[in-house]
């Protein structure tokens, strides 16, 4: 049980406090309800570029990192297609330093031209390092465009192309900030060696007078139901062929999420999973194979990806995957196998909750889903899943018409 208290400031900022006196540290986590899905198609990669700019100085404080480091703290941030999250950890005595820094950059950034110029370059190097200069680096760029035609999940958080980042202007930066980086669109979680009263006082003092901002009304184009199987073959300078298959699945808040999540574990979660045992160990068609999803807030993609053993025919490999999928579509799984993936889930959740930093991040995420308390009832929902649910999901989701298949072929055999 994660215990926490919640209160809301006059400007709409939601604050959650999770005291844990066993650590000398405090964690301050600020989640902004904005991700790459909120970008426009001509200016992709912006939410992530913006995350970099959040460290380039705020209206009253020229540098974010330095005062935090002086206070013995460290920090980081990440951007996904759905959200942007900033977190720092520092000795609890210096908690107010984190409030000072986080509130000032919620109030307003410095909007420095130098910072924008430099971070554009840094993000371009990040783009190259992860997506251009790596074998298979463009897979998700390609797959997203294949699987999504309307919804903004069709581009990656790093952006669709380098030029979108290179062309970002200070006006874009300002508009994005005042639209999304406001108290009404944010969730603040404070955890560690702190008290609720102390956090109330500090939150009121540092965040209380920041203008509320306008509630961002998300109105994203829904992805139309896919009506026929989509296939694409690309040739790349990689050593091995690989296959990527995706199917549209439910959104994170959907009741079916839990059964879908367990289904991915049955298929590809670890060394005793069906795809690994059958295709890597028994048939030896693949060097590795995985099944996973991203837990996307809007309708996501259930994914199978595998790298073929050199010399194996791609069609044969794909047929072998389909044969395994047939089994989950046709047969109910036995109790032991279902219990196995539930046990695994329970264990993953317990290990995730080991650190205060993770607990703070999870609380913010569940609050974004609707209520931080969901963190405590989440495992119950997995417990209620039955074999029949997985069977139904397998038949609803893993259909040909709902599938996107990418053959990623080596052009240097």
């Amino acid at each position, binding site marked *: 049980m994660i215990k926490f208290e919640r209160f809301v400031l006059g400007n709409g900022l939601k604050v959650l406090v999770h005291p844990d006196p066993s650590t000398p540290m405090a964690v301050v986590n600020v989640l902004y309800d904005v991700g790459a899905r909120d970008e426009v198609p001509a200016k992709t990669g912006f939410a992530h570029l913006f995350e970099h700019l959040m460290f380039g100085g705020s209206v009253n404080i020229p540098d974010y990192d330095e005062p935090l480091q002086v206070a*013995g703290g*460290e920090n980081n941030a990440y951007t996904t297609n759905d959200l942007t999250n900033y977190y720092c950890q520092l000795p609890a005595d210096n908690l107010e330093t984190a409030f000072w820094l986080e509130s000032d950059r919620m109030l307003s950034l410095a909007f420095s031209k130098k910072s924008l110029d430099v*971070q554009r370059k840094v993000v371009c190097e990040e783009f*190259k390092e992860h997506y251009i*200069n790596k*074998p298979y680096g463009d897979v998700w760029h390609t797959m997203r465009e294949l699987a999504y035609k309307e919804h903004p999940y069709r581009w990656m958080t790093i952006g669709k192309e380098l030029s979108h980042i290179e062309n970002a202007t200070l006006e874009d930066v300002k508009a994005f900030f005042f639209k999304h980086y406001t108290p009404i669109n944010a969730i603040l979680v404070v955890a560690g060696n702190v008290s609720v009263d102390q956090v109330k006082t500090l939150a009121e003092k540092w965040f209380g007078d920041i203008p509320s901002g306008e509630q961002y009304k998300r109105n994203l184009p829904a992805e139309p139901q896919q009506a026929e199987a989509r296939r694409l073959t690309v040739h790349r300078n990689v050593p091995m062929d690989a296959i990527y298959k995706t199917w549209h699945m439910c959104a994170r808040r959907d009741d079916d999420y839990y059964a879908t999540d367990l289904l991915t574990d049955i298929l590809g979660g670890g060394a005793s999973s069906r795809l690994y045992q059958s295709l890597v160990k028994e048939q030896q068609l693949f060097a590795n194979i995985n099944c996973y999803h991203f837990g996307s807030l809007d309708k996501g993609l259930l994914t199978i990806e595998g790298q073929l053993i050199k010399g194996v025919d791609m069609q044969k490999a794909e047929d072998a995957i389909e044969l395994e999928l047939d089994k989950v579509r046709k047969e109910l799984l036995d109790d032991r196998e279902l219990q196995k993936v539930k*046990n695994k889930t329970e264990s993953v959740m317990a290990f995730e909750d080991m650190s205060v930093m993770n607990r703070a991040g999870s609380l913010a995420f569940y609050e974004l889903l609707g209520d931080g308390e969901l963190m405590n009832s989440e495992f119950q929902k997995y417990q209620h899943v039955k074999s029949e649910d997985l069977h139904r999901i397998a038949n609803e989701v893993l259909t040909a018409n709902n599938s996107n298949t990418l053959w990623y072929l080596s052009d240097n055999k």
Partner: protein
Amino acid sequence: MPDRSLAPEIKDAVEYKIELKRPDTFSLDNGVKVYNVQAGTEEVVQIEWVFKAGNWFDSKKNVSSAANFLIKNGTSKKSAYEINEFVDFYGAYLNRNCFNETAVVTLHCLTRQLAQLLPLVREIFTDAIFPEEELLIYRQNMKQKLAVNLRKCDFVAGRKIDELLFGFKHPYGVYSFETDYDEIQVEDLKKFYAQYYQKGHCTVFSAGILPKDYQQLMNQFFGDLPFNQKPLENIEHPIVSDNQKKWNIINDEEGVQGAIRIARLFPTRKHPDFPKVQVLNTLFGGFFGSRLMTNIREDKGYTYGIYSFLVNHIQSSAWMISTEAGRTVCEATINEVYHEMKQLREGDIDEEELMLVKNYLIGTLLGDLDGPFHIIGRWKNLILNDLDDSFFYHSVDTIKNISAAELKELANKYLHPEDFYELVVV
């Protein structure tokens, strides 16, 4: 409305008294030592069995790592699948990792499942059979993994710099070619397993919320095994550094970035300069606010990130700078690294910057000691390096007390470009 131009008062992190909680220790009947940190909020445990079975003991390349990987891929009673299914059913993780001196088997599980899982761990330490079929799959999959990695400039640079520093025949410098995997035979694995696992040298590190009868359980399942019976053989591997200091390698004609490694040999933890250089390194390139990061990322935008670090080896360390930079700015990046070395040798570090580094180091140390897994991790590192907490407290004191003049002296001792290997792999 608060005055936002004024920073709140802070307590300097260096004023904190840092304590490294001591583990409980006990010995099994066969003399195997168990170090245990009982703490935490979640009902979970982590147990690491550390064997002296790293590539230091290889008589043929990769036998140590293959034996470590395949140790759970079959016993005379259970197939690889049955073992995996058993571990997964109890929501556990049974991982293995092979390093230079040591090879480790790690169990993570919920506390209440521990008693069910320990018999299986015993089984793999006594009865692993290394089936031929499993070895064939391993060979094939490792060859493919290597082929993919060889397309990455950072992977190629990482192994080349180790070779330049330590020599290809040294366990720290050796690396694999695809054909090496074909050389490994089942007999090699069985022989290595018999010597370095079944009758090997083992130390146990555990943490979390252990069950009440933990000591008895460990003794029941591991206390009668023939571990630690003979003294460990003393194997020496001479370091043979390369004669050529500067290297440029084209791995991918179309590469848009170069992987840069700049490195020199450095003494071990036991050298009196080691703790002090940890501080100098932090200031130089050891954290986000370092001079390298501030100059090369935050001012010039040449890279997504640049770091320097002391390599975590037991017999000999190295001081390394590592980054991936745009292909056209690799040379400029290297020049800036040398420029920052020069600044440290010739310029003065002001008190404010030094205080920032000290506070940062102590603050992160406080944060790193959060939770039982982190605490046992510190202890494992100390014990495997033949050290105790006096080394830890000495390092803390060094951070708190070191002066700018001492750091400058160290920079003049160690940060000379001519002493460094310089490697760019595009």
